[in-house]
Structures are given as structure tokens and as C-alpha cells.
């Protein structure tokens, strides 16, 4: 259970509290670091709420068309490579772990460990995008990319094209967010390298951590919705 009477202004450790009041990172319009951290966290979670709704539009389209065309969605989903999909999910969960450990390292002031874990997270992110690239290439080869060259062995090919439109829209948007995450992480790596973070102020690391975990959660939903449709028949 979270601390009973949570006071957003509470900062761990009395001495750290005193130091925090005059820490260079305290912005002039905030009273103390606790208020500044609470503001940053609320701001990030609000931004993540907008991202939930941004992807939500595509989830609404997916939900409708899966209800309308369950069989076609099954066939088209079976044409996706499930091993690559599940491996990719594990890779992304791994990158979430390394990101969480990076935030932990920042919170305890271990600069070198922070940089290692950030680099690991970026590596796993790149691996994910690599595997995604392989899948996309495979789709191009099989002419499963919506457009004039689309071809799909199945009863109603044009509805399969609808599935692949959703597939490329959702995974494309997710991959785009991954690229932004990698960019974000490069900035964090630079700042960590220049020693900008300390145990009392590492908000950018935590915020990019929240962003990265969110992108992982989107994939946690995309994987069953796109890859695991009617795998049994």
C-alpha cells in the first residue's frame, strides 16, 4: 500500500530535503523539489492519457472490423509470424526491465549503471525495430501491403486488406513511438554522461521511463490483438 498520508512535498531523507531546497535544479516558480516532481509526474501521466486515446482511435476501428469480419481477421492474423511476434514481445518486456533498472540506478545516484542500462534499453529497442523490419519485409515480399500490389489467398481478399491496413497503421504508429523513445534515450544518455543527474533530481530519466513503459504496454495489447486471432483453427 502506498504511504498512508502521502504528502506530494515529501522528499526522502531530512538532509536531502535541506539540500533539495537550494538545489540548482529547483525551478524558480516551484516552492520545492517535491512539488516540482509531482507536477512533472502529473504532466507525464496526462500526456500518457492522450496517447491512450490517440491509439484508442485505431483500437476502436480494430474492434469494429473484428466484430464484422471475424473469419477474415483470423486468416490474416495466421499469416503473421507468431514466433517473431512473441520474441518481439519478450524483447520489449526486457527493455522495460532495463529501463526500470536505469531509473533505479538514477534514483540511487549510480551514474555508470544508469548509462549501462539506458544503453541496454536502446539496444533492445533497436532489436525490436529490427525484428519488426524483418516482419515488414516479409509482408512486402508476400504482397500483403495494402495498395495496388496487394494480394491475399483467401475468400475475401479486400477485407484482408482492411486487416493489413489496421496492422500497418497500428504497428507503424507503435514503431514510430519507439523511434521517438530511442531519441529520448539518446538525450538522457548524453545528460547522464555529463553528470546532470543526482539522487535528488533525475526527473528526465523517470519521465522517459514512464514513456517507454507506456510504449511497451501498447505492444502488450497489440500482440494478442494482431497475432493471436483464431490461432487454433
Amino acid at each position: 500500500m502506498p504511504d498512508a498520508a502521502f504528502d506530494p512535498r515529501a522528499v526522502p531523507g531530512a538532509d536531502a530535503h535541506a539540500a533539495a531546497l537550494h538545489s540548482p535544479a529547483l525551478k524558480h516558480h516551484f516552492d520545492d523539489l517535491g512539488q516540482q516532481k509531482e507536477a512533472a509526474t502529473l504532466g507525464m501521466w496526462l500526456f500518457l492519457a492522450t496517447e491512450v486515446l490517440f491509439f484508442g482511435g485505431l483500437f476502436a476501428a480494430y474492434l469494429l472490423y473484428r466484430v464484422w469480419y471475424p473469419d477474415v481477421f483470423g486468416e490474416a492474423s495466421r499469416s503473421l509470424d507468431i514466433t517473431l511476434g512473441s520474441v518481439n514481445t519478450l524483447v520489449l518486456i526486457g527493455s522495460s526491465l532495463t529501463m526500470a533498472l536505469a531509473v533505479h540506478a538514477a534514483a540511487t545516484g549510480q551514474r555508470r549503471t544508469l548509462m549501462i542500462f539506458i544503453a541496454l534499453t536502446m539496444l533492445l529497442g533497436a532489436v525490436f525495430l529490427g525484428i519488426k523490419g524483418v516482419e515488414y519485409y516479409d509482408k512486402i515480399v508476400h504482397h500483403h501491403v495494402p495498395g495496388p500490389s496487394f494480394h491475399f489467398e483467401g475468400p475475401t481478399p479486400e477485407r484482408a486488406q482492411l486487416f493489413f491496413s489496421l496492422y500497418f497503421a497500428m504497428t507503424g504508429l507503435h514503431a514510430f513511438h519507439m523511434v521517438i523513445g530511442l531519441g529520448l534515450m539518446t538525450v538522457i544518455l548524453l545528460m547522464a554522461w555529463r553528470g546532470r543527474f543526482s539522487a535528488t533530481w533525475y526527473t528526465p530519466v523517470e519521465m522517459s521511463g514512464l514513456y517507454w513503459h507506456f510504449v511497451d504496454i501498447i505492444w502488450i495489447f497489440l500482440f494478442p490483438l494482431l497475432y493471436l486471432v483464431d490461432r487454433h483453427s
Partner: protein
Amino acid sequence: MNWSLPLFPTGASTMAGKVDLLYFVLIAVSGLAVAVISLLIIAFGVRYRRRAPDQVGAPVIPSLALEIGWTAVPLVVGLVLFAWGANVYFAQARPPVETLDVYVVGKQWMWKFQHPGGQREINELHVPVGRAVRLTAASEDVIHSFFVPAFRVKADVIPGRYTTLWFNATKPGEYHLFCAEYCGTQHSGMIGKVVVMEPNAYQAWLGGGAAEGSMASQGQKIFQDLACHTCHLDSGQGRGPTLVGLYGSQVGLASGQVVTADDAYIRESVLSPAAKVVAGFQPVMPTFQGLVSEEQLLALIEYVKSLQAKPQGTPATQAPAGQQPAAATPAAPQPRAPGPAGRNPGGDRN
């Protein structure tokens, strides 16, 4: 400059009266509310205008009862109006059983009408007075909206599916037809006339009718041209199910689902045939997407409608789908063994 200043539209359909009544009640309720608010503002405004420069308003204790009152009253009035509106809307959405069917195709910037008797019209629709007319509408390109102000009727016409609307004209005359959903350059030119005629004048107009025969016969010609008859034999022995007596019946699908064979089902079966495969048949039918226009589709539907149980010699052997046990679909793709002798009594469609 046209100086005529009409303030209220003529009502020329059975629905017009109901909608107008609801409209007047809404005006009364809104007018009353605006009047009360304006009078209160003016009264308080004059009564409590500031007299001394440093005069301060007296503190007023807000009363909970008043607050709950003016929350509950609008809610109740609103729900009553909702229920009334929904009731009339239901009647607008459900055509009566006996209707004169006309087919409408909306196309960028014209309305094309097809009567079952074969008459074709553009931007003009002749209908008899006093009879319910049901329009089945399709669009060839973008969303249009069929709007006849005098009948208080409007329905969007959406590509990819059929929408229906109905009216029962009460006064002969010519009424505006507008396209109400923005559809491009000539959106304001996509207008026309609905001509409501006395029954005998309507029959005379029908008489002068189409040269190329009824819509059903046009459908039959298309049915032959596209070689549909090679698979869809009347006897049901071909690779495709028989279409005799199909329209309106319940059809058992290979997936075990049972659907009603309405306009949308026939349209979908022509454009994406493998979507709903009839039980006991293989998905071998090619798609006719792009090969058949909206008008031809409507003609085909009219033809299928005309194939009610024909009193021919050979009884229809296609077992009414409902009774055919779905489990008995033969695994082998060969057409079902013909067994006319008494396996199922022909002809008496339920």
C-alpha cells in the same frame, strides 16, 4: 429579387404533421424559457441597478431546493421531449409493410431513380398520392443525403450499403428534392423535384413507361449476360444455390449462422461472394466488384425478388435452409445428389 417571404414549409406527407407538432411544442418550451430568463434579467437589472458608486450587493443565501428544482425540471421536460421524439423517429425509421418500392442511386451531382416497372428518371421522382413509397438508396461515390423538406424526410445515402427511407405523400404537387450532405462542387446543383400525382394521372404516367421492359426483366438480362444462370439453376443442382423463393427467406450459412436474404445480403453475395457461403456449397463464385454497377445490382435484386416460387413443373428441390441439418454438409465438394422424389415436399415455402 424574389420578394416572397415563406415562413413555414408546406407539409405534404403523413409524417409532416407529427414533426411539426413536436417542433411547435419545442418552440413553446424554449420560448417560455427564454422569455422567463430575459424578463428576470431585465427586472433584476432595473430593480437592482447600482445607485451609489460604492454600493455592494446584499449577500443572498443560495437555497438548495431551488437548485434541485431547476435541475430536475429541465431533466424531466427533456426526457418527455426525448420520448416523444424517439416515438416519432421510430415511425420514420420503420416503413409500413405494403409499400411501393423505388430504387435511388445517388451519384456525384445527380439522383437516378428506377421504378420496378422499368421507368428510369433523373432528378425527378413521380409518385402516387396517398400510398407509402419506400426508397432503397445507394451511392456510387461519396455520401449524399436524400432530403425532401415537404415530407420532413431525410436519409444519408452511403456508398457500400443500402439505406432506406419512406414517406406517404398526402397532397399532389411538385416538391423540392435537395442533397443535404456536402458532396463536392455541384452539391448545390444536385437537386430535383418530387411530383406527387393523383392515382389515375400516375397510372397514365406509368403507361408511357419504359421501353426496355420492367426492372425485373432488365435484371434477368443482366443475369444472363453475366452468366449467373450457369451456376444458379432454378433446380438448385448447379454449383450455386437456387434463387427461387430466396428473397426474404432465412438462409443457413456454411459457418452455421442463419441470415435473412434481404437486399444487403444479395448485394454482398454479388460483390464479395465468399463472405457468406450458403451451407452445402463451395466458395467458388468469383467477385463481380467493378463488373456490375449500382443500377445493375438493383435490377438484379428486383429480378431475384420476382423469382418467388414459380408454379413450374419441377418442384424446387433446394430444401428450405432452416430444416437442413447443418452438420450434414457433405465433406466432398461434389454437388449434392439430386433426389427429387419426396425427400422434401417442393414448393410450399414457409
